[in-house]
Structures are given as C-alpha cells and as structure tokens.
C-alpha cells in the first residue's frame, strides 16, 4: 500500500506476523491525518507486531507525535508489540524532548527482532 501527499509517503509492508509502516518525508499537522487513517486499517490490527519505520522521516511536529502515540495506544489495546525505528536528528530530538524515548520501544533497524 502506498499513500502519499505532497510531503509524506507511507508504505505499508506485511511480513508474516508483523506489519512495517514506513514513513518517508514529513509528518506534521498537514500530513498526520494520512497516517491516522492508515493505522485504523483492520489489516494492521490482526498482526502481532507493529513497527513504525522512521528511518526516512525527515521532520515531525507535535501533531505527528500525537499520531505515533495513538498508534502506540491502539497496539497496546490489541496486545500487539509496538516499536519505532530511529528517524532523523530532528525526529530523535523531538522524541527525546517529549520524553517518549522512555515510553516507546526504539529499535535500530525495522528488521531487529522484537521479543
């Protein structure tokens, strides 16, 4: 599945028991609803593991953080494991400033095994 607007592209990859949602570009007030709509997809609910791959995400703002937190919350409610892979310096800075690096599982690569 590929969704895109001017500055955010979302690729959703299903791999056996997990789904990897790759974000490319910028996740902000304008593009956040696009990700919000995508994570409400029932196909994502049925997997065991949800990974948000931020490796190619250049920019995020508080509206973007909110959607990531909503994804985390949704996975938690469904008993799914949830993790993020590292984003750009700006993305990592905001995650750290927001105190989310303590709450969310951050992995080095989306292929890292989640136990």
């Amino acid at each position, binding site marked *: 599945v590929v969704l895109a607007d*001017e*500055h955010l592209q979302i690729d959703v990859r299903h791999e056996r028991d997990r789904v990897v949602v790759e974000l490319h570009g*910028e996740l*902000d*007030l304008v593009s956040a609803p696009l990700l919000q709509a995508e994570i409400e997809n029932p196909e994502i609910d049925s997997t065991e593991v949800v990974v948000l791959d931020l490796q190619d995400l*250049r*920019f995020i*703002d*508080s*509206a973007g*953080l*909110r959607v990531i*937190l*909503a994804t985390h*919350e949704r996975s938690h409610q469904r008993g799914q494991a949830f993790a993020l892979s590292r984003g750009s310096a*700006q993305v990592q*800075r*905001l995650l*750290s*400033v*927001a*105190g*989310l690096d*303590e*709450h969310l599982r951050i992995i080095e690569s989306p292929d890292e095994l989640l136990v």
Partner: protein
Amino acid sequence: MSNQMTRDGTIDAKDQPVSDAGIGLLIEAGAVLASSLDPTTTMGQVAHLTVPHLADLCVIDLRDEEGSIRDVAVAATDPSIAENLAALRARHPLDPDGKHPVARVIARGEPMLLAEMTSMLLDSFAQGSEHARFMIENDYRSAVVAPLPARGRTLGALSVLRLGDSTPYRKNDLDLVCELARRAALAIDNARLYTERTRIAHTLQQALLPESLPDVPTAEVEARYCAAGELNEVGGDFYDVLPYGLDSWMFVIGDVCGKGPRAAGVTALARHTLRAAAMCGQSPTDMLGTLHRALRQQPPEADMCTACLVLMTRVNERTLLTVALAGHPPPLLIDPNGAARQIGRHGTLLGVLDPINIAEVQAELGAGETLLLYTDGVPDAGVAGDEPLGESGLIELCGRAPSLSLPGFLEHIEQVALKCAQGTLRDDIALLAVRALNRTPSQR
C-alpha cells in the same frame, strides 16, 4: 416577479427572459463577488459593475445592527455625482422609518420600480431640501430599488438609477436587478461573517496571552508571539509570567498540539490551570502534574501539551532558577559573551501518557545573562524539504544577545525564523526572555 431563478442558477423565463447582456452581467458579478472578503470592497465592486450598462448611478445602502442606514457605496458614470451623493448621505443619513424608497424596501423586503419619477415624487421622499435639490439637479428619472436578502434578513438595498434622457426601467428589469442584489447580498454577508470570524479569532488569541507582563525588579522581561497560518485561526502557543510569592516569579511557556477552536480551548485550560497551581504555591513539577491531570480529564480525545516552567527566585542578591520541562525544549542560558547552553532535563509531555516523569534542574542567572524560553516553532522554522533553523541555529543566534537590547534580540530571532520559513511559518513562534540587570541600576 415573473421570472424565477431555479436551484441550479439558470433562469426560468416565464414571460420575458433576462437579456443576454443581463446574463453576462450576472456572470461577471459572480466572478467579482467571489474575489473579495472585505464588505466595503465587495459593495464598491457591485456598484461599479452596474455602471454604465444597467445604470447611470448605483447606490448600495446597508443597515447596521441598530437599524440605521449607514454604510454606503456609490458608483456613477459621472464620478462627481457619486462623490457628491456619498457626501450627502454622510451628512444626511436616510431615515429608516421614512418615505425614501430605500428605507421602504429595507423595511418591507420587497423591490420597488419607480419607472418615472416626477419632481413632486422626488420631493416627497427627500431627506431635506439639499437632497431634493441634488436629485432634481442631477435629473433623477427612473429607478429600481431591490432588497439585499441574506439568511432571512434584509441587509440593505441596491438602487439602480437612470438620469436625464436614459431609457426608463420597465417591469422586466426588476428580475435582473433583484437577482444581482441577491448575489451581492450573499457576498456582502459572507464578507461580514469572515471579518467577524477574524475579529473573534484575534480577540480569542489576545485572551490567551497576557495583556502585559508584570514588572520584575532587577530583571528585564520581554515576550514575542507570531502566529502561523490564516488570521482567523487561533494558535496553540502560550506564555505567561506569574508572581509567585515574595521575590519569586514563575515563567511559563507552552505549546498545545493543533490549531483552531479546540486548541484554543485547551490553551485556555493550560494557561489558567498553571495560574491557579502557581497561586496555590505548587512547585514547578507539581504544577505540571496538575496540568497533566487536568488534560487527562478532558474527554474524549487526548489533548496534549508541552510546557516549560522556570521559577526565578531572588536570594541575597543572587537570581536562582528552577527549571522543569514537560515535553518542551529546554530554555537557553546565554552568558554575557553570547555563549548559550541548555538548562533542564527532558520530561514527558502532558496529557497522553502515564506516568509522567519530570525532574527539576537548578541554575543561576548572573548579571547581564539572558534566559530564553521558546517554542518548537523557532527551531522548526523552515520550508518543506530544507534544513530548518534547528537548535544549533538558534544557539548560534544567541551570540547576538549581548550586543542587542532584549526586545531587539527577540525581534532578531523572529526575523531570522521568518526568513528560514520564507515568510510562511508552519507553527507558531513564542519567545519569552528574562535578562538580569547589573546589580546596581545606576551602572546600566
């Protein structure tokens, strides 16, 4: 009226169709009316549209909230007539309860055709002798006055007039004038609503920010705010400076996620919760905890907010700072040489996750040093696809602090941020700064 507009805007001609020229005029009106959101501009454009094909003179009179007929737009083939009539209306406003056709049309909401106006008729509804003389001197001959209907009310009236030897209006001209008036009324109503909405947004925005900052002895305090987006959107950044007991002040800056009425509501909640918590003498950490709980109680969607609190206390000639952060970038402490360092430890943003983890960090503000609190809009200022200003860019800008006045320094940051954003900010910018004065004011 014999001809009716159908729902899709075509003309259902029962007797006499609106002429091709009339349809052309309505099409042109559509384009003109869609182009402005300023009521005065819209009125002027409509009046000009009718001259000279439909009228030698066109007047639009609007009723205000009290019922007086005040706002007037006039257009005429002879500009001096338009000018003189506008001046005349200003000197002698129309009596809303009088006999003038405009007053009668506004009161009744029905159009009037005055096919042939005699001087006796003109005299009967003149607002005094000057008005009567004006109408007779300019050879008023024939007129159609149509109401301006919008949302069940009559906003005013559109009058078209022919002077001297021009062909008098006939019954079939009524439909065209009424249709034009209907379209103009919608455009004027929309423009008024837009203006009103912008005014409300502006008032609301003002209510979310302190009117003035309190006087802090031994320190200079300055703030700056720049909202992103349209004028009628309310931003989510806020700042405040609160007196906090003897010789202590609480500096507050925060950012509510989102824009518009919902964010404005959360911003008001955040600002007033922090004010109340400060009045109760809560520590910065406890104040943030109180705000977190208040946000958590807000159903149904998670409203989140970041905040930075700095408690400044004067103790024995020293200025001590206690910094607490909740999802907010740390403030910068700038020394007299312009070197800046971040103070504070990252803490959890408020309103979405439990438990929150916030730690207080102590520092001291020396003489001539500046403390700068800011929101993310500053380092994030940039255009899509390009590197934003960044925290490193902001730290670099702090090098200018010692050589600038405090207002000048904040203005400089704002200018650079706006430049990085190429004039269009994607997030609001709020800046709050405090500079310790040298110990003895006479040395300044």
